[in-house]
């Protein structure tokens, strides 16, 4: 963690300062601290520190590795192009163990020890929800890349935003029209029996009914499960489409066993790529997936109509045309999620530059600047596609992709419009105080 060392250079001086401040401001309550510290910092023109909350260990580890590569790549790009407001960007990474408790502690560490300007990069929803309250209390802008609905649901606070990746509610509802009109109307859903799975269940059931379809069976798999075959008989015979979404180390087992169970004569199968993120499509036992469909936020395989932006993005992060690491073809990326880190960092850059961000005292300005954003065009900064950011709900909305497995590759079959992903606001964070 070389980046840590850089931090410590000017650390001692600030520590001393801070202790004094603490002593003085003690009776006023420690909450006065960040302000003072901010003053100490803004004078200097040292790097902009971005606290990167990364799942190095725990069930999120595979995502974490690629989130890290993408983030480091983006930071490199930004710095090569002169940084933010002329200041270099420095990524301060801390492992949260994919655990909400540790996550909150890490956020505190960013704010109070590493003196980060913002915190960023969290994927797993329970870590986001566990950490966001602390970010709010510490008045630390917290840019998550989680695709959870927690931000737009209004559960969190003014300091938490998700400008880089569309949330699950949008993703799911945008799938319904295609599923209903191309795959079938009687759907059986298989999903993990926790909140993420319940979101899929609830939003998709509602969306498919709007399309005249119906979810005829819902199979919630306990997260502690490591073998799945025994649940498949619960799938009704008259199912047109199996809708599956799984996470965690057991995903490959799940898909393989589904294949063993059905063999050649299977119903239509539509899955969220989460079931196979970071898993090689060529893994033994996945042949049967040929002809099935997947949601992807960003197609893993370079498509025929690949944009120059996607090309540049792959080159920068080190991903080949099959979505695997250029250095190791077995090391498959989490391509449908990691772009969010890249795009979020560029949004932060834009926000800071718009706000004329100097230091922690300008954090509120930064939030307001980002809230002011709306249309985000397709570009090298936003290679996944054009987006609309909703300042009120702190949530971004973008195109979604449906790909079909053909000869072991995921080939683009459909691209949704941004409108497909929109839904009525559930909160207006701009009305909440800082």
């Amino acid at each position, binding site marked *: 963690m070389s980046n840590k060392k850089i931090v410590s250079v000017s650390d001692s001086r600030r520590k001393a300062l801070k202790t004094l401040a603490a002593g003085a401001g003690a009776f006023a309550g420690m909450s006065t601290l960040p302000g003072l510290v901010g003053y100490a910092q803004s004078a200097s023109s040292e790097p902009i520190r971005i606290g990167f909350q990364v799942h190095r260990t*725990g069930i999120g580890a595979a995502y974490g590795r690629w989130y890290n590569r993408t983030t480091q790549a983006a930071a490199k790009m930004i710095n090569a192009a002169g940084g933010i407001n002329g200041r270099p960007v420095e990524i301060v990474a801390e492992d949260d163990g994919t655990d909400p408790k540790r996550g909150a502690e890490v956020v505190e560490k960013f704010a109070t020890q590493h003196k980060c300007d913002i915190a960023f990069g969290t994927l797993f929803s329970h870590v986001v929800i566990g950490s966001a309250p602390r970010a709010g209390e510490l008045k630390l802008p917290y840019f998550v890349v989680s695709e959870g609905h927690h931000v737009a649901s209004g559960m969190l606070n003014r300091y938490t935003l998700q400008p880089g990746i569309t949330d699950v509610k949008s993703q799911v509802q945008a799938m319904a029209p295609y599923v209903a009109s191309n795959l079938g109307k009687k759907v059986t859903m298989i999903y993990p029996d926790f909140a993420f799975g319940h979101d899929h269940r609830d939003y998709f059931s509602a969306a498919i009914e709007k399309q005249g379809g119906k979810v005829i069976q819902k199979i919630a798999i306990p997260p502690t499960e490591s073998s799945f075959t025994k649940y498949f008989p619960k799938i009704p015979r008259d199912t047109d489409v199996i809708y599956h979404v799984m996470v965690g180390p057991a995903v490959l087992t799940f898909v393989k066993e589904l294949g063993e169970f*059905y063999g050649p004569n299977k119903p239509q199968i539509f899955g969220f790529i989460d079931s196979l993120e970071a898993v090689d499509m060529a893994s033994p*036992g996945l042949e049967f997936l040929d002809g099935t469909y997947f949601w992807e936020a960003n197609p893993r395989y370079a498509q025929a109509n690949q944009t120059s932006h996607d090309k540049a993005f792959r080159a920068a992060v080190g991903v080949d045309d099959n979505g695997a690491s250029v250095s190791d073809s077995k090391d498959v990326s989490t391509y449908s999620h990691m772009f969010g880190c890249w795009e979020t960092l560029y949004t932060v850059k834009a926000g800071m530059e718009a706000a004329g961000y100097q230091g922690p005292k300008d954090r509120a300005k930064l939030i307001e600047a980002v809230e002011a954003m709306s249309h985000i065009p397709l570009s090298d900064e936003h290679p996944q596609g054009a987006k609309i950011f909703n300042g009120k709900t702190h949530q971004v909305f973008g195109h979604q992709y449906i790909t079909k497995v053909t000869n072991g590759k995921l080939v683009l079959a459909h691209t949704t419009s941004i409108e497909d992903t929109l839904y009525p606001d559930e909160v207006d964070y701009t009305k909440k105080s800082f």
Partner: protein
Amino acid sequence: MDFGPYLLLASLEGAVQSAVLALTAVGLSLVFGTMRVVNVAHGEFFMLGAVLAWWVTTFVGLHPAVGFIVALVVAPLAAGVIAAAADLTVLKRLKYDPESTIVATIGILYIIQQVVLMTYGPDARPVQAPFSHRFYTPWFGYSSYKLFVIGIAILLLLGVWVLMAKTRIGLILRATQLDREMAQAFGIPVERVYALVFGLGAALAAMAAVLIVPIQQAHYLMGGDPLLLSFIVVIIGGLGSLMGTVVAAVLIGMSDGIISVFFTPTLAKILATLLVAFVLIFRPNGLFGKRSS
């Protein structure tokens, strides 16, 4: 699906789980029975077996079957040696005091798990089955390899039984189990026997993992469930009773499969878990344990 076939499938799944569980739990039971040590790190030796299997198969690289057979020999051996070393360096020096050994093995648990994390990484990696044949009933398809697992597990269990009942080593083990001091008096090198038993227990867990890893993937956190389950099995089976352990493994494995037929998955897990708790509450010495503990 009709009830009959469903039950058949659930039973098959239960049987696979039972087989692997029995193998893992017998390892734990052996250690407890002979050494009176509760080995909390048992699950990590299981995990070690799976990870080593991945390494061996990728290293060998030839036909999956070859790699599999090599792994079936190498992984348990390596796990056994590591376990024996842990026994000689740590447990022995604790004089096998029950409380301290629990703490120490918790420590060993973390050490093994984290060293694997550092070297093998946090990913779940697949190991190819020695053969990937599927057979189809009118209602569902099923992997022949899973049946193969059941077969092998039964053979291995028979092997353990022969070892314990028919060989001189078995005799020594049983003697040590009955009365440590007496065994020592009769010139049995108890300390070496303990190291052997601890290694053997770990090897059995590793073997079970090699069998299961083509079905599941090798992951550094995969040790938790086998530990809990084999714990349960050993207690339900009556501490130290190998036969009881096997029977309990079958009961637990099957019930997990069958209960899932009748309830929604999570509810099934809840009921299965409660079932175990209440069996112990009303038969504190396990189903096959002697009355006085």
